[in-house]
Structures are given as C-alpha cells and as structure tokens.
C-alpha cells in the first residue's frame, strides 16, 4: 500500500514533463535560428565579446603596451608646451592632459562601464521581474500598491534625482549602480506585471492549480518561463542605457571619481582640450558609442528573433 502512490505519481508526472520540454524548446530553437541568420546580430555579438575580453584582460594589455592607466609618461607624455600629445607608436591613442596613455585608460574604462551596466541592469531585471510577477499574480491590494509604487518611481525625474542623491551621499561606483538599478526596475516590473496578468488567466495555469501546484510553484515554474523572452530583450536594451547613465553621471562629475577612468569622466576631462587634442575626445567617445550601439543593435535583433511580429511585447 505504501509503495503505490509514488509509482502513480511518477507515471503521471513524466509525460507532462516531456511535453513541456518539447514545447518550450520549439520557439527558442526557432528564435536562435532566426538570430543566427541575422548578420548584424552576429557582428554585434562578436564586438561585445571582444569588448568584454578587452575589459577582462585589461592588466594583460597594460603589460603588453607598457603603460599603466593612472601613470603619467614623465618623458614623452606631453608636448613642450604641456599639451596632450597626438597618437604615436608609443601612445596609439595619444596622451591626455596629464600625459597618461589614452589607449590603456579607454581599455580600463571598459571594466567600469561594463560592470556598472551589467550589474545595474541585472539587479533591475531581478527586482523588476520578481515584483512584477508578484503584483500581477497576487492581484488585489498588493497589486494596486506595487503598481502605484512603480508609477511613483517612473514619475521621478531620475537624472535630477540621481545627481541630487550623489551630491548628498558622495560619488562612488556602488551609488551609481544603485541609482541606475533603482530607477530601472520599475519599467521592467510594469512589463512583467502586464504579461503575468494575461498569462495567469490561461487554461494551463488552471490545470496546474487543479493538479495541486502551489502559488509559488505556479509563479516560477509555470508563469515565469513565458516571461524570459521579454525580460531577456529588456536586459540587452537596459545594459546600454545603464552604461549611458553612468557616463552621464561621470560626465557631470557625479559618477566614478577620477583618477579611475570611465568613458564618461574621460570625456568630461577632454572637453577643455577639444580645440587642441581631437584624439582626447574621439577615442573615449568612440569606445562608448561602439559599445552602446552594439548592445542596442543586438537587443533589437534578439527582439525580432524572439517575436517575429515586432514590438508587441513593448507596447504597454
């Protein structure tokens, strides 16, 4: 008698799991095939991989070119007039106003920008997805409260608020990441909430409940997998936005503090010299633009691949 229930359960559970596996793989494989055929997406992906590699290998590259990000070149770093020097064999991207090598600074800045972008976006995605899932699934008062909270956050003039906060607390990478995540999760939450509300009325959710699945299980096992696509697309679009936000804060002098290089604070420093040293502005600007453009183009292609009907998921 005691052995009977497990066998029955195993017998019933297996086919359900199998069909779900097959159904879940179908659209993903289709999307992957569409994405692989998209040449722009592949190029952008390779560019991003390259930038990540450069960021990770920054100390190795520093050894290779023989410059440190914060070291001034005492001998050949500046012109006799004390101005930045143009690109040359020893300094391929030229030097900055303190005689530091711009190439290695751009390389090191990639670490900060990617770190800020990826960590802040991931935090925002996790918080936004969980809050949106709970709000949409539970409904009622909890939902009203959470939805209104998201409305309030979305009504914040966030850059103004960000610089105000940073000026009070003092600039640091942690604060920058916190500010970006705080103002980004609400839009993720809104999208996830909207999707959850429509998904939870579907028959298969009812089926799961009648099989005895609990709320938490339904939320994360039955509802959440359907949200991975929009969340994934949102993540690739959020990363460049976060990178731009970090650069903007650094540009205003309220982001990461010098001498730690970021593309934003390098650009801020370079603006006093744009009349005499084009390379000082050009290379950090190009690095920033190539990175954000690659992420945005990739995000766009991923969206098209996952949802061939276009921007349906992003309407709300």
């Amino acid at each position: 008698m005691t052995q009977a229930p497990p066998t029955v359960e195993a017998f019933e559970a297996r086919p359900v799991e199998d069909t779900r596996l097959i159904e879940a793989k179908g659209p993903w494989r289709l999307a992957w095939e569409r994405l692989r055929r998209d040449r722009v997406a592949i190029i952008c992906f390779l560019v991003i991989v390259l930038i990540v590699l450069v960021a990770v290998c920054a100390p190795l590259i520093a050894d290779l070119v023989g410059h440190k990000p914060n070291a001034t070149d005492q001998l050949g770093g500046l012109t006799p007039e004390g101005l930045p020097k143009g690109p040359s064999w020893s300094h391929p991207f030229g030097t900055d106003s303190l005689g530091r090598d711009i190439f290695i600074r751009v390389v090191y800045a990639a670490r900060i920008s990617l770190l800020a972008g990826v960590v802040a976006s991931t935090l925002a995605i996790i918080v936004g997805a969980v809050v949106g899932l709970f709000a949409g699934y539970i409904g009622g008062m909890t939902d009203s409260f959470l939805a209104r909270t998201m409305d309030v956050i979305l009504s914040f003039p966030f850059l103004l608020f960000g610089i105000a906060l940073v000026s009070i607390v003092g600039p640091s990478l942690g604060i920058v990441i916190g500010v970006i995540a705080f103002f980004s999760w609400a839009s993720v939450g809104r999208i996830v909430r909207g999707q959850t509300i429509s998904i939870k009325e579907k028959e298969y959710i009812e089926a799961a409940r009648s099989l005895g699945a609990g709320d938490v299980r339904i939320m994360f096992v039955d509802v959440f997998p359907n949200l991975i696509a929009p969340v994934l697309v949102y993540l690739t679009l959020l990363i460049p936005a976060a990178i731009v936000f970090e650069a903007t804060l650094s540009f205003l002098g309220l982001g990461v503090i010098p001498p730690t290089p970021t593309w934003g604070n390098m650009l801020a420093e370079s603006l006093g010299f744009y009349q005499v040293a084009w390379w000082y502005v050009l290379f950090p600007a190009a690095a920033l633009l190539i990175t954000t453009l690659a992420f945005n183009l990739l995000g766009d292609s991923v969206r098209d691949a996952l949802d061939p009907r276009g921007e349906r998921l992003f309407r709300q």
Partner: protein
Amino acid sequence: MVAFLVRRLALGLVVLWVMTGVVFVMFFVAPHNVASLIAGRQATPETVALVKHRLGLDRPLLTQYLDYMWNLLHGNLGYSFYNSSPVRSLIWQRVPVTFSLALGSAFLWLAMGISAGVLAATRPRTPSDRVVTVTALFFYSMPSFLLGVIIFYLFFYRLHLAGIGWFPGNGYVAFTSSPLGWAQHLILPWFTLALVTAAVYARLTRGSMLDVLGEDYIRTARAKGLPERRVVYKHALRSALTPVVTQFGIDFGTLLGGVIIVENIFGLPGLGQQAVQSVLQQDLPVVIGTILVAAAFIVVANIIVDIVYGILDPRVRVH
C-alpha cells in the same frame, strides 16, 4: 470621464505627496553639511551652529517637515539658503527657457520620429527601412551629452572659426524680445535633444504601424478603394499613435534629464542648469522645489496622455 479624471488627479497628488516625503527624508534627514558649506572653510563650530539656526535646520525634523508642507500647501516652496530669494520666483524665472527648449525639441522629435517610422513601416525590409532603423539606433545609442558636444563643436566652434556666427554658443533671448534670436539660441539644443529622442519614436511608430497595417479594417479601407495615402495617414496612423502617446508621456521624465545636460552644454539659463548648480551647493529648498516642479510636470503629462488616448483611439473610451 469626470470620475476618471478625478481619480487620476487624486493619484497624481498622492504621487507628489510621496515624492515630497522621499525628497525631504533624503535631503533633510540624511546627513548634510550645507551649514558649514555656507559658513565657509574657516568657520568656527559656533558660526556653523548659528547658520544652522538661521536656516531653521536645528529644529526637530517633524517640525521642519510640517512647516514645509504647510508652506507648500500655500504655494510657498521656501527660500534659497544662499540668497534668501523665494524658490518659487527662482524657478518661475527659469521656466520659460526650459519650456521653450522642451516644447521645440518635442515638436522636432515627434515630427522626425513619426515620419521616419511611417517611412520605414510602409516600406518594410527595404533599404530605406534599414537606413531608418540603423540611423535611429545610432542616435539612440549616443548619450545626449556626447551628441551635444559634437553639435556644439561642429556648428558653433567650427563655424565660428570659419567666420560664420549663425548659431550662438550660449545664452538665451526671450521670445518676446526677439523671436529670431530666440530660435537662433535654441536651435542647436533643440536638435540635440530631438535627435536622441526621435530614434525611440521612429522605432515605436514603425513597430505599431506594421501591426496596425496588418489589421482587418485596413484591408476593408483598401478594399473600398480609398487611396493608399488616406489609408496610411488617416486610418492606420491614428491608431498606431497610441503607444507613441504613452511613450511621450513617459519621456517627460527623460526629457527633464536631457534638459539638465543640454542646458549645461549650451549655457542656457534654465531649470536644468539651476538644478545642477543648487545640487552642488546643497541649496536644499531649491533642489526640492525643482524636483517637485519636474515631478508635477510628469504627473500632468501622464494625465494629459490618458485623455489624448481617448481622443485618438475610440476603443479606449469604452473601458
């Protein structure tokens, strides 16, 4: 409709009230050193305490908060810590600049974004569609400060070197004193803001136009022999604009962020410039006042968006 408006207004007021609370806690309760900043570097602790007392910062926090709220309800935003002028008039002086900047660039980006989006959507997967998409994403990926600096360099610095002074590099002329001077001073900032933002609208319009053009009522319109222009612009565009309008409401927040950057690059004496300045000086009443005004803009914009919804898309009115 009236009940809906009342509900939205009440919600908007709650949002603003929550925001005052958050901002108040952040700036008055969190440790700040505005008193020693005003008193100067050499100040004795007594002087700092005196300054603190003069600014009313030594009172219990609850008193300060209730006092602030009481004044706020009477339309008084407090007084600047630095020159004692009322925050309301400080903000009021700068509203025309920011408003001109926002209005002009909003007009430009809607015009550019929507027309580019329609262009791309009516010729999907053609070279012109590709060009619109890539251009849009290019400008979208560019931080507004970078685009501002590039535009400043090309159209102010280079042209000035060449002896062409069409576009001044800073300052503001009131519309009432010289409409031409007003436009001249604003045209570069307008384009900076508009180009960065138009990209989003081009993408959005394209996507929703493509969806709408596939609907049955468009086929009906074509079947009854309407010219394609009329189908696209009258029938399809009207309902395709709904997501665009939502985005427009949301972008008021982003716009105010962009305004901060652009005003600082082009030396426009607007709210954004004042915001950065007062933040750096920790002039708390001005900071709070600016944030509140900005938030009120956003709340009002969102309410207007909800009303415009009903006008654009009759289906919404049913709910």
